[in-house]
């Protein structure tokens, strides 16, 4: 029989530092450690597994897709987070599962954005809808949905321009894209995924909050996870907005996309 004891304060401090180092942020790290403080354990070996279990419990389940056709997914996020590459990867994944997919290059602003997605579409043998720079992104989304309905396509994946949430006119542009999609196809966009760079700090939470105001988010893609960043910001995002991580990006190739596993994610965080 082993007596139950509170966790050694030095161990709690060390765990809190590891969470902070993983970008969980002050509030989430403190909350998780406080919960450990309230408990008693038979041995110190039980503490880390308990912390991990608590962290896995914080992560919401993925969005359920109910086979609506075409299923429209909007990819949004700040500049350089990995949206265009992610759209290509998701297209490849869906195609390999037998889906008909159309890509929409709705970044009509940035230099060579359309060309970038076009090269991906060519590599993956997927149709892509694009126009010249300066054209209206909402019009492209409209065309994409029209084409998808006409061709009986399963998935429309919409790439949008990177934008910082501080740019109100760009957030308004995103709202317009969503409105046009919804008008053309009630229920669209069925998924709106914010693409977050795993290296992002506490601003990742602000990004989700602000983007969520403009276009209701349904989930997250966490990119560049094969680096050393842990992506711990998703815990406070989960607490505040209940957003699940749907996929993680683990490289720059088309196949470098994995469906999200909370257990694997938490394990990797402590490696």
């Amino acid at each position, binding site marked *: 029989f082993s007596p139950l004891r509170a966790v050694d304060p030095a161990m709690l401090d060390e765990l809190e*530092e590891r969470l*902070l*180092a*993983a*970008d969980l*942020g*002050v509030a989430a790290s403190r909350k998780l450690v406080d919960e450990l403080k309230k408990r008693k354990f038979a041995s110190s070996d039980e503490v880390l597994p308990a912390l991990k279990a608590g962290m896995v419990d914080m992560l919401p389940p993925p969005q359920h897709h109910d086979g609506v056709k075409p299923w429209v997914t909007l990819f949004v996020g*700040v*500049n*350089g*987070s*990995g949206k265009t590459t992610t759209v290509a990867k998701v297209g490849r994944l869906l195609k390999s599962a037998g889906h008909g997919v159309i890509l929409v290059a709705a970044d009509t602003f*940035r*230099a*060579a954005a359309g*060309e*970038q997605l*076009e*090269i*991906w579409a060519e*590599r993956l043998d997927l149709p892509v809808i694009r126009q010249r720079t300066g054209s209206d992104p909402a019009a492209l989304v409209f065309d994409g949905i029209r084409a998808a309905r006409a061709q009986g396509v399963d998935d429309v994946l919409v790439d949008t321009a990177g934008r*910082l*949430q*501080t*740019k109100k006119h760009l957030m308004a542009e995103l709202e317009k894209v969503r409105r046009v999609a919804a008008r053309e196809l009630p229920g669209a966009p069925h998924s709106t995924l914010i693409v977050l*760079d*795993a*290296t*992002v*700090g*506490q*601003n*990742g939470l*602000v990004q989700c909050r602000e983007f969520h105001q403009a276009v209701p988010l349904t989930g997250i893609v966490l990119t*560049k996870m*094969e*680096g*050393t*960043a*842990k992506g711990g*910001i998703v815990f406070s995002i989960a607490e505040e907005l209940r957003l699940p991580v749907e996929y993680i990006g683990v490289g*720059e190739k088309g196949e470098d996309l994995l469906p999200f596993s909370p257990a694997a994610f938490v394990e990797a965080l402590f490696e």
Partner: protein
Amino acid sequence: GLSEKFQRIVKKIRGEGTLTDANMEEALGEVRQALLEGDVNVDVVKQFIERVRERARGQEVMLSLSPAQQLIKVIHLELMRLLGGADAAPSIPGRVRDGLNLKDFPSVIFLVGLQGSGKTTTASKLALYLEKRGLTPLLASTDLQRPAAREQLRILAQQHKHPYFEGTSSSVVELGRECLNQARLKGFNPLILDTAGRLHVDEALMDELVALRDSLRPSEVLYVADSMTGQDAVRSSQAFNARLNLTGIILTKLDGDSRGGAALSIREVTGKPIRFAGTGEKPGDFEVFQPDRMTSRILG
């Protein structure tokens, strides 16, 4: 300038006559929390707080200030020293204002960093900036891996009428040499070389960058870092610095609302000066880095 939060911390301890150990620790605790919430690296914060604690208690007593005022001064000085530093731009003959070493002919400037940090966009901004100062930069890229990477730089160069060169080699190092030869041949100075984004843990790509550096001998290797980076900023910048011996840092996307603690972390851990700030997507959104603006932003 001191941020609102810093002012509140100041008011709290200003209310005390003398600075006791207890309220010093309380003040330091507040500063620690503000820095962590501002994305400064956990270990950098630890060292910073430790240094401040020593200095505030130590022999460097400023007799005209109360202990509380002294603590405030130490914190502010320490932050400014970290971010700006009087050692930021040593005087070397042939240097352009704002500290870039362009004494070779032609000089070579590398833009390096993680994927998506803003290197390609920054390359065209730097070209405009240097042109305004009477130089004749040539833009080129050795990014053979990202789809339409060179196309992106070509379009940016074209939009703003900067000289741009695209080599034909399929080897990154040979391509780099091609670009340098072109600059030399046509009398351009400097060569601004955009490179492919890469992870510091990708051995092959880091080796490639080292080989490129060994061959082209750039006088400036500028690490382009996204200002919204969190704790990982230390790991990546440290690794790049260890392998390349960076000459400076450029922070991008400062037109966002991230606190930018990565600036402090990167500066502390590499010791290299932050030269420029990217403040938007347009070519003119580029300025010399201002340390005092950054300190109040980080403290929130």
